[in-house]
C-alpha cells in the first residue's frame, strides 16, 4: 500500500471515530475509555512482529516486553470493561 492509500484510510477512520464516539451515551464514558484503551493495544501487532524476528536479539526482547505490556492492557482492559458493563441494569418492573 502506498502512503496516500494509508492516509485515506486514516482520515476516513477519524471521521468514523468522530461520529461513533458522539453517539456513545455519556453514562458509558468510563467504559468507553476502558475499551478504547483495550483496543489501542492492537499495537501488540507491532510487538509480535518484533518478537517473532530473530534478526536482532535486542529488538526481539523489546518486542517480547511489548507483548507483555500490551497483553496486560488487552486482557485487563476488556475484562474491566465487561465487569463495568455487567453492572448497568434497567429498573426491575
Amino acid at each position, binding site marked *: 500500500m502506498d502512503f496516500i492509500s494509508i492516509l485515506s484510510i486514516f482520515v476516513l477512520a477519524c471521521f468514523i471515530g468522530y461520529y461513533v464516539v458522539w453517539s456513545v451515551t455519556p453514562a458509558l464514558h468510563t467504559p468507553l475509555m476502558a475499551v478504547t484503551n483495550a483496543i489501542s493495544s492492537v499495537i501488540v501487532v507491532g510487538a509480535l512482529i*518484533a518478537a517473532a524476528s530473530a534478526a536482532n536479539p535486542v529488538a526481539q526482547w523489546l518486542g517480547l516486553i511489548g507483548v507483555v505490556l500490551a497483553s496486560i492492557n488487552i486482557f485487563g482492559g476488556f475484562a474491566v470493561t465487561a465487569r463495568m458493563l455487567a453492572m448497568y441494569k434497567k429498573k426491575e418492573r
Partner: protein
Amino acid sequence: MEHVALPPWALAAYLGSGVLFILALRGLSSPATSRAGNRFGIAGMTIAVIVTLLTQMPIPEGHWWPRPRPADLATFAKILAAVAIGAVIGLTIARRIIMTAMPQLVAAFHSLVGLAAVLVAAAAFLNPGAFGILDSAGDIFAISRVEMTLGAAIGAITFSGSVIAFAKLNGNMSGAPILLPGRHFINLGTLLLIVGLTAAFALESHVGAGESALFWIVALLAFLIGFLLIIPIGGADMPVVVSMLNSYSGWAAAAMGFTLHNTAMIITGALVGASGAILSYIMCKAMNRSFISVIAGGFGSDDAGGEAGEKIDRPWKRGSAEDAAFIMKEAQQVIIIPGYGMAVAQAQHVLREMADLLKEAGVTVKYAIHPVAGRMPGHMNVLLAEANVPYDEVFELEDINGEFAQTDVAFIIGANDVVNPAAKTDKGSPIYGMPVFDVEKARSIFFIKRSMSGVGYAGVDNEVFYMDQTMMLLSDAKKMVEQIVRALQD
C-alpha cells in the same frame, strides 16, 4: 516503496478486525447493546493477534498458508509465554480493582500502551527488515523514519504523562499544580526541538538499522516533555488530562500503524484518538475551561480544603437526618445530585438504600449527574451502577435541569461547584459560565457537607448554603445517609 506483501487473506482479516473495533464503540450507544460491543472488540483483537502470528511464519512460494519450522515454534512458545504473563497480570488487576479507583487504572493502562508503542518503534528502528521498511540500499525509508519517530515520541509522552496522572490520581503525589519558572518556554522549546530533530532524522542521507542517535534523543526528549506537561496540571483537571492521554495513546498506535502499513492499527488509532479528543472537549465544556488553559496548568488544586474558606458570618440553617427523612418521605419527587465527595465517602450503596426506602413510600427518585462529577468522564454513572442504581433513573444535566422547578427536594451529596448559582450570575467567579444544576428552583434543598468552612475545588462560596429553603446536613456523607436511612425505617 514496496513493503513486504502480506497475503490477501491477512489484509482482509486486518480490515475485518478494524471494523469489529468500530462496532465495539458503536455498541456503547446504549447499555443494552454495550456488552455485545465489548465482545466485538475481543473478537477484533483475537483476529489481529492470530493473523499476525500466522503471517510471521514462512509462507512457501505458491502457497497461501504458513509452514512453521522448529525454530519458529520455539519463538512462538516465548511469545505465548509473554501473552500469558500479560493475561494473568491484566485479569488479576481487572478483577480486583475497586470502581472508585477506575481513573487511576485507566491512567496506568494508558502508560502501558505508550510504553509499548515506544518499544515497538525502537524495535522497528533496530530491526527494520522485519517490519519491511528497508529500501534496496539497506536504508530505512525516510517516511518510515518520520512515522516511527512520531510513534515513539507520542508513545513516550503518553507514558510519562500517564505515570504523573496516575501518581496524582492515586495520591502518590500531591494533586497541587507544580509550577516551574519559565515552564511555557521550556515546554515549547522542547516540542520544537522534537519536531526539528525528527525532520533532521528524516533528511539524513543514509540511515540503516539503528544507525542514528537522533531517534533516541527524540524519544528521551518526549519522555521529558510528558512529565513537564502534566506536573503543572492540578488534580481537579485530571478528567481532561486522562481523556487527553487516552487520545494520545490512540495517535501513537496510529503512527505505528503507518509504519507497519497495518489497517487494523490505523483504524483503531483514529477511533481512539477521536474518542479521547471528544471526551476532553466534553470535559472542558462542562467546566467552561478552554483546552489551552487546562494544558497551561496551574488551576484546581485538589487540596483546596478548609484553609481557603473565609470566615462565614451569614445565617444558614442546620438540618438533621430526621428532618431530611421526614421531608423527603412527604415529597413527590426527590433529585439526588452526587459528587466526588460521595465516592470518597463510599456512600453510594447506602444512598441507593435510602432511594429504595423513598420509592417504597411512593416518592419518585432521580439522580442527576454532572459531566465532571467524579474524576473521569462517566465515573459517577459507574459508581451508581455498581451500587445497583438502575441506569434509567440516572439523568444527564441537560435532560433533568428543567425539572427542578417541579421538584420538592434537591439532595446534594458530595457536590458543590456543580450546584453553585454563581456560575450563572457572578461574572467575576472563577466558575462563571460553567453549566450547573438549577437546584435553587427546588422547594427544599438538603446539602450534605463536612463543615461550613470547606469550599469546592474552585475555592468559591456557594449562595445555595444560605438560601431560605436550604438545610445544611453537616457530617460525613456516608454517616449522614445512614442516619437518614434509620430515620426512614422508623
